[in-house]
């Protein structure tokens, strides 16, 4: 085990319940594993209820129901009700696809606290192209209904090269829909986004322009709309503090019951992530190899090990280190102190070339046909 054993382990606060990998949309930046079709098994209602109960007892309080598309689970209202009884603050993270008014009401009665609707772009054409499905009109309607039924309305737009030029229109759309929260999530390059990076990564100029517009808007709507701006760390010189520290705060449960310290951790080799069918959440959190692997600082290599910033960013993201350098123990290459930092510049350059000169590669949409090819 790489992690250190003599540090105080804090209990989980956030639980992400990925109910199903099924999804009617095909976003090419989806953070699900590219080989998701391998994991067809889904936990039963009873399994999920047990997991929610166990994690709540440990201190988890924020709960996200996501996927895939969580609405594909018929027992969603039952799980929401159970979560409410336990005292969770629960969030439905949905594409909105197939969400009808009676379901919105039913979920509210069951105790759902808020609904986060994702919209792919500010125009129908681009939204439907990116989603791989005609869904724009319906999503706008869902956003209105969410508000009508008294939920805080959280709008999420994933930002990348195909829609970043629409930033002003995206902000306008959020305002006219009356969003209470707007999440502008620059794409993080894991899963399908990693595969499509040359086509999705904006140029530095595009990124800087869009950020300026978003920051100005943030001031303008202060007090009315809260903006969460997730930066694309390729253009930063320090990595993000991944998961607030490995195994300190976040717990993800995948559709088949595998417990993950972060939702991309499935991509990491040799972690042997445990399944909630075999162990209690408490055993998993405190005792499993996977959750202890990158706890603390003992596992680090140089330059992180002797760096005075390691308590701020914990050496960055393990999945990014693995995807970009082939070694999950290395410093996140986003860090300018990393000896591998050049791979980030190369990725930026490759994407810029593809943007200027075009590329032969088409976007790979997230669907089971493509997933099976990628196994």
């Amino acid at each position, binding site marked *: 085990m790489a992690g250190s054993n003599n540090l105080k382990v804090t209990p989980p*606060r956030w639980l992400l319940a990925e109910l199903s990998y099924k999804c009617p949309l095909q976003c090419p930046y989806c953070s699900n594993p590219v080989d998701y079709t391998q994991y067809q098994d889904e936990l039963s209602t009873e399994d999920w209820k047990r997991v929610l109960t166990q994690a709540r007892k*440990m*201190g988890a*309080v*924020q709960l996200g129901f996501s996927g895939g598309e969580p609405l594909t689970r018929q027992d969603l209202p039952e799980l929401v009700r159970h979560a409410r009884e336990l005292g969770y603050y629960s969030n439905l993270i949905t594409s909105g696809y197939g969400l009808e008014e009676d379901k919105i009401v039913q979920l509210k009665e069951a105790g759902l*606290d808020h609904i986060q609707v994702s919209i792919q772009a500010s125009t129908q054409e681009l939204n439907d192209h990116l989603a791989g499905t005609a869904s724009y009109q319906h999503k706008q309607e869902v956003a209105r209904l969410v508000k009508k039924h008294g939920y805080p309305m*959280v709008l999420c737009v994933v930002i990348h090269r195909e829609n970043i030029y629409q930033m002003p229109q995206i902000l306008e759309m959020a305002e006219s829909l009356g969003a209470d929260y707007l*999440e502008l999530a620059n794409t993080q390059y894991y899963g399908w986004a990693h595969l499509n990076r040359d086509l999705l990564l904006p140029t530095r100029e595009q990124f800087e322009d869009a950020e300026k517009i978003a920051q100005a808007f943030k001031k303008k709507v202060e007090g009315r709309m809260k903006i969460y701006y997730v930066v694309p760390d390729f253009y930063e010189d320090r990595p993000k503090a991944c998961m607030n520290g490995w195994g300190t705060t976040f717990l993800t449960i995948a559709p088949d019951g595998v417990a993950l310290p972060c939702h991309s951790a499935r991509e990491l080799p040799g972690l042997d992530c445990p399944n909630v069918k075999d162990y209690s959440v408490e055993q998993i959190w405190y005792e499993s190899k996977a959750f202890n692997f990158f706890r603390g600082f003992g596992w680090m290599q140089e330059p992180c090990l002797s760096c005075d910033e390691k308590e701020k960013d914990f050496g960055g993201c393990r999945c990014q280190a693995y995807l970009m350098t082939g070694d999950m123990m290395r410093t996140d290459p986003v860090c300018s102190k990393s000896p591998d930092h050049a791979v980030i510049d190369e990725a930026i350059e490759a994407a810029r070339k593809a943007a200027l000169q075009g590329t032969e590669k088409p976007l790979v949409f997230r669907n089971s046909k493509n997933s099976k090819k990628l196994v």
Partner: protein
Amino acid sequence: MALDKDKAISFSPMHRLQWEEAQDKYVILYPEGMVELNQSSAEILKLCDGQRHVNDIVVELEQKFSTSGLADDITQFLEIALQNGWIKQP
């Protein structure tokens, strides 16, 4: 946005105020976030019931803790709470 002394204060329906056993404190929950409260902040917020005005809250808490001169602290905290959207006035 400034606090109006002549209007009742209610806790925002877009947030939830809740006792957390595991953390041994009250917290405010909202989309993607959580604020941990100290005891006095929690006592103030619990009285934001859509009926009471600032003055009522001051009087009640001064009585409860057998003390005086809480008006400034309470008003200051309520101003912050209003800016953060935790409470609202009609």
